[in-house]
């Protein structure tokens, strides 16, 4: 009877409707298929799948769980699969798909990395950079991670109160080494070729394309094309950057930079016989990888000009002939490979360069190749970055946390309920209080999923705080009504409620005021706490508590009547 009456009140109805909407926001209908989390560099599906893709079907079998897909672990042959609803094919030569997939969660609530596990990295530009450069840096990093293809990553620019910008990356995994070599690396690429100038009577000739430049030796420096260049200094000559590396009485060694990051037009990711190379070979005790890069026309011209007229030497063992001076490839001033230049390339416009390297085992060689391919293909970052923070949280923690959180919530509710029962000794009061606390939880989580807010550990703490103040307010409302009964002056329940709400609003205002500064602290590490607390308090004072006041008024009013 009373419930029927209560349902007629618009405040109570509003709460019920909003709770239903919030529940729909949190739990949308179940999805089919599995989501691709990561693709190993040696997977046959590299280049064919991207993290985040949905696989729903493979070789006549519908895929609805990771186990469904793992049944293909020993499969070889033609693999037909539905990727994001479209049929695609892949040839699998060796058993093993080498991808990881997860069942998409049935909930729209996105949980933070500290709850589900993963790696969060905070990178800080070494110098101050403009908004534009920051955006460019992030996009370069995104390209890098996508090409590396390992995992889903979320990029975000975050600022602290002092106005310093950081790049925050959240990934499903990633070792410290991967972070240092893939993300915190600027990726400045340079290909250098040394040219030896023979000096006789203190002078010699540096040949560049069709031009000859006279080099005159001076004290620890040379004079070339009206420039005086000291040892170890850099200069420009005919559009090429040079460095005078060393000089003796008889020789001066110049190093020309023939290619740099901007000269890389494309990187060969997958071997295409006759077109481009991306290979891995077992050579005696180690694994050697090699891949091609396509260079720009200007770069190719530079290569031709620099190598023109270089001396040819013949390897006595193999009989092959090379130019006198290897091409050395540097990444961030670190030598990555050094290669002989076949003599027939001297002076020729060459648009392909090959990068090689060796590692002790196959997996390392593959990873290194993929890493270099990603860094070279994405280009250099406009700024150098330093890793200022890394959080790596174990993934298994997630499942346990959810279980613990539910148990904690139940026990905390039971503990509060028993205090309330001891105090009021009325089940009639206890039931709406518990119901209202649950409704507030659903409303806060529903709002979080609606606005796309990620629930992290700090948000959970905020949720607890919000529910706590909610319970406080309920106690205040009930006591105000009960207290009014004893007073001689007759106050209507409405007047008593008004008095209660003065306290409720006053306290809510101060909590929100106290939470605001937290939004800006520690580049938002505790933002989740402030947002959920504020959200909870606002939902409480404007939506749920007025309705609770009405319910308490009806329940306790019926007692008085």
């Amino acid at each position, binding site marked *: 009877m009373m419930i029927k009456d209560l349902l007629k009140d618009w405040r109570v109805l509003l709460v019920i409707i909003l709770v239903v909407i919030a529940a729909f926001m949190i739990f949308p209908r179940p999805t089919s298929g599995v989501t691709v989390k990561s693709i190993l560099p040696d997977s046959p599906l590299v280049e064919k799948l991207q993290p985040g893709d949905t696989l729903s079907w493979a070789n006549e079998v519908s895929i609805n769980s990771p186990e469904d897909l793992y049944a293909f672990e020993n499969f070889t042959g033609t693999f037909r699969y539905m990727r994001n609803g479209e049929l695609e094919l892949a040839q699998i030569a060796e058993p093993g798909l080498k991808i990881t997939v997860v069942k998409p969660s049935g909930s729209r609530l996105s949980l933070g990395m500290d709850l589900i596990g993963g790696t969060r990295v905070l990178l800080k530009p070494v110098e101050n950079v403009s908004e534009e450069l920051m955006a460019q840096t992030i996009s370069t990093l995104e390209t890098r991670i996508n090409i590396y293809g390992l995992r889903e990553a979320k990029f975000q620019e975050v600022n602290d109160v002092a106005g310093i910008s950081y790049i925050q990356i959240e990934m499903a995994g990633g070792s410290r080494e991967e972070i240092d070599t893939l993300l915190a690396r600027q990726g400045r690429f340079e290909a250098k070729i040394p040219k030896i100038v023979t000096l006789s009577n203190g002078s010699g000739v540096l040949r560049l394309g069709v031009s000859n430049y006279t080099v005159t030796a001076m004290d620890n420096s040379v004079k070339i094309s009206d420039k005086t260049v000291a040892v170890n200094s850099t200069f420009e000559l005919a559009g090429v950057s040079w460095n005078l590396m060393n000089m003796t009485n008889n020789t001066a060694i110049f190093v020309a930079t023939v290619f740099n990051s901007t000269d890389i037009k494309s990187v060969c990711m997958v071997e295409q016989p006759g077109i481009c190379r991306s290979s891995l070979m077992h050579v005696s005790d180690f694994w050697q990888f090699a891949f091609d890069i396509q260079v720009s026309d200007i770069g190719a011209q530079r290569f031709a000009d620099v190598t023109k007229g270089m001396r040819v030497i013949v390897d006595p063992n193999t009989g092959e002939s090379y130019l006198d001076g290897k091409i050395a490839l540097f990444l961030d001033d670190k030598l990555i490979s050094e290669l002989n230049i076949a003599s027939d390339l001297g002076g020729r416009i060459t648009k392909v360069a090959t990068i090689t390297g060796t590692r002790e085992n196959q997996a390392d060689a593959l990873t290194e190749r993929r890493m270099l391919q990603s860094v070279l293909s994405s280009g250099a970052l406009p700024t150098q970055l330093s890793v200022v923070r890394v959080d790596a949280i174990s993934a298994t923690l997630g499942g346990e946390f959810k279980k613990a959180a539910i148990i904690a919530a139940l026990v905390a509710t*039971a503990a509060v309920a028993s205090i*309330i029962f001891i105090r009021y000794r009325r089940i009639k009061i206890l039931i709406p209080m518990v119901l209202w606390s649950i409704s507030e939880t659903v409303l806060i989580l529903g709002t979080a999923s609606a606005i796309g807010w990620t629930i992290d550990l*700090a948000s959970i703490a905020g949720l607890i705080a919000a529910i706590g103040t909610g*319970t406080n307010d309920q106690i205040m409302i009930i006591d105000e009504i009960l207290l009014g009964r004893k007073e001689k002056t007759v106050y209507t329940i409405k007047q008593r409620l008004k008095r209660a709400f003065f306290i409720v609003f006053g306290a809510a205002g101060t909590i929100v005021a106290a939470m605001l500064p*937290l939004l800006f602290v520690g580049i938002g590490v505790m933002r989740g*706490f402030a947002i959920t607390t504020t959200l909870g308090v606002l939902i409480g004072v404007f939506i749920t508590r007025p309705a609770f006041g009405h319910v308490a008024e009806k329940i306790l009013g019926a007692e008085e009547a």
Partner: protein
Amino acid sequence: MEAHKETAKPRLKLPEVNHKLLMLIPLIMIIASAGYVIWLSFGPGLALDIDLKGGTQITADSASAPDTAAIESSLKDFGANVRSARSMTGWTVIIEVPADANTDNVLNVLKNAGWEYSNLSVQTIGPALGASFFKQAQIALIAAFIAMSITIFIVFRTPMPSLYVVLCGAADITTALAASQLLGINLSLATFSALLMLVGYSVDTDVLLTSRVLKGTEGDFKERSRGAMRTGLTMTGSAIVALAALYLISSSIVITQIASVLMLGLLADIPYTWIMNSGLLRWYVDRKAKRAVA
């Protein structure tokens, strides 16, 4: 209005004590905790977690009771600091090393020592970033306090009672900070949030008391403040039991840190609100009454 004596006996009966003498309790608490915090900040420094001072924190679950002293000595070369915490499911070991230590090497040493762990988490924060977080957190605490005080003044529009509420909030935070430091709970971004949250909880009971006493129309000061106290203690009590449940069950360090700091603060809030603020308000009401008579 006719003077009315409440005939129904209040359920909660406090022994009649000289309330001026009673005021000594919160006074000593304030002086002791403020003194301790000031001594810490100017002397040995507040105990900070890595998110405020920088460093690497490795947390791992261990099925058996970890021998923290043995782990610490095996990681001597890294200058490690090892703590452990008991959770519902087992033990959590917290290892702190400087930010520039190689965590892979640390883990290798542990592995070689035969220590088995699971659920490994590694957090590294650069010292400069940690220091900047600490500075920002301090600014946030001050800003929150100012914002809260302004709101209180707007709500009550009477300077003295508002000041008492603010004073209680400040006392709560200081005592919670001092007590948590004393119990070995490091200051972190999580405990900082707990301190800010405490502002909210503390204000709840103070606003309740002040508005009942100042805006109430029935009974004398004692009756009004006792009514408020009954409500306030129910509020604080339910918050404390809920936090105790979280503290005992949760395996997350963030949650246990927040829960313990809030519990300490709420316990301190009881004497601050119901003895100190109540005493100050009584004095304020008496003085106002005298002035009205004169």
